[in-house]
């Protein structure tokens, strides 16, 4: 149980941090697509009998880079969709060749956090450190290229190269988070928390911290409720993420309304004075 908590904590922080850039770049679709490639990897690894983590890593990286390269020519969203379904199709094949009982597929797709051993914890920690280091190194060019791609190009930051780095980062995150929340639901962790965080603050540094915290709260409460009720973790992760986003939207709308009201008052006061 302690292992599960530790694992989930690391995963939530990384998903929150990397997710911030996903939302900033408007790359929700890619964040959804890459983990699906990872599903094929997990199924393939159990077909040939190697460590699932290797399968996850290789396939999510291949998927991510494939989307990056193919998306350069052709329509980006159509390419993403096609690469994604192709990987899933491969996964379906691998699964049909290995597994007889479908509960394993279910746990890869929707996650199973409670069965983490301490030996499995080591690779997660290593991957997390690599991830954070990559974000730290890429921080400035990634930020610039995400917000103002043209200005980035002018300063010699190639948008295409940054896109590939970013996709690799998503693949890395996918690799470590899949065993916890499953390929279909990582994405809601990587979108919900950062999107909510962005409606509370405009400062990037603060938003990243907040995003990691919201992801943390989401995962912790999901595990706790799941433990208490016996229902799948994925259900609570998905629902709580959506709730956080709704709260964020509500807060942003309320604040906007208030600012408008205050401005209105000020205008009234000014016109009354003259």
């Amino acid at each position, binding site marked *: 149980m302690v292992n599960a908590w530790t694992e989930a904590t690391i995963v939530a922080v990384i998903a929150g941090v990397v997710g911030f850039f996903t*939302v900033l770049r*408007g*790359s*929700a*679709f890619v*964040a*959804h697509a890459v983990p*699906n490639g990872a599903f094929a990897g997990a199924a393939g690894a159990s077909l040939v009998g190697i460590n699932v983590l290797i399968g996850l890593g290789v396939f999510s990286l291949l998927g991510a880079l494939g989307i990056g390269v193919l998306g350069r*020519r*052709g*329509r980006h*969203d*159509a*390419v*993403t*969709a*096609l*690469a*994604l*379904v*192709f990987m*899933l*199709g*491969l996964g*379906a*094949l691998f*699964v*049909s*060749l290995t597994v007889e*009982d*479908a*509960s394993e*597929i*279910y746990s890869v*797709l*929707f*996650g199973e956090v409670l069965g983490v051993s301490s030996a499995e914890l080591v690779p997660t920690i290593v991957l997390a450190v690599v991830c954070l280091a990559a974000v730290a190194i890429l921080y400035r060019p990634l930020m610039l290229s995400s917000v103002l791609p043209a200005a980035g190009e002018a300063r010699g930051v190639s948008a295409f190269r940054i896109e590939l780095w970013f996709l690799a980062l998503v693949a890395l995150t996918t690799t470590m988070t899949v065993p916890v929340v*499953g390929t*279909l*639901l990582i*994405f*809601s962790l990587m*979108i*919900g928390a950062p*999107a909510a965080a962005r409606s509370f603050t405009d400062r990037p540094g603060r938003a990243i911290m907040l995003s990691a915290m919201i992801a943390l709260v989401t995962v912790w409460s999901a595990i706790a409720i799941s433990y208490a009720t016996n*229902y*799948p973790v*994925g*259900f*609570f*992760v*998905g*629902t709580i*993420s*959506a709730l956080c*986003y709704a709260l964020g939207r509500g807060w942003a709308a309320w604040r906007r309304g208030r600012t408008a009201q205050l401005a209105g008052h000020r205008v009234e006061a000014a016109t009354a004075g003259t």
Partner: protein
Amino acid sequence: MNDFLAPVFESGFFTSSTVQVALLVGGIVALVAGTVGVFTVMRGQSFAAEALGDIGTTGGSGAYLIGVGPLWGFVAISVVAAGAMEAIGIQRPRGRDLATGIVLGAALGLAALFLYLYATQSAHTGATVSILFGAMFDIPSSTIPLAVLLGLIVAGIVAVLYRPLLLSSVSAELAAARGIPVRAVGALYLLALAIAVALAAMTIGTILSTALIVGPAATALRLTRRPGAAMLAASLIGVGATWLGIVLAYDSYAWPPVHHGWPVSFFVVTIIFALYLLSGVPGLWQRRRVASRPVAPAVAGTGDR
């Protein structure tokens, strides 16, 4: 004739009623999906198609839970989801991806719950696989009328909307200036897309259904720029891929290592993906030729975007 085709079609292919139903329903679905898909690709709504398909998982598993046919679940949920996405705001490109993603995430969570409940209730676990990856050979023949009806509805919507939809897909401003209710047209189109996705989910599975919508259309749009021709080509590619996939899957029952058949949807999706990659080759070649020519001012714009 029969001897000649024997290596391609395993014995009993044409007499099996399962295969006949699969060919018929698969063909209708691919036809509809290809037609609708051209607009999906032109409008850049691939993610919406993908999300509607994935969300179908929730409907399909819910249908299993209450004991009705999965197609009802697919259609109901994707129409509802299309409405939700439209309401949250699908017009702005960036915010739209985010909104789609959030709806999708929540729906997938719900699907996880439904599948879990169904697995604990009924003790047989096949539902997960057949919802997610399709059950082409398990389509009951009683579904045919419903599938045909839904296909006709989609075709009807596309036929009625054809011109305003085309204009508002190419340029929303121009369409609005001409007095076309762009938002209403978009919403109706999303409804047609939702139904088409639900149909595709029945044949190749919820999370693979996008392949039939986006793949043939993206391929066709690389081959021709005329929308009408693209719709025709996309439908043909979709039907061809589906039928070839069914043939291969039927043959694969005799293949090693396991003799229980490879998934149909794997074949369909792989064929579609391969065709898409192939269709990029002429553009690549053409562009290289144009680039190597010393002066080519007029031709430079005709390459693949």
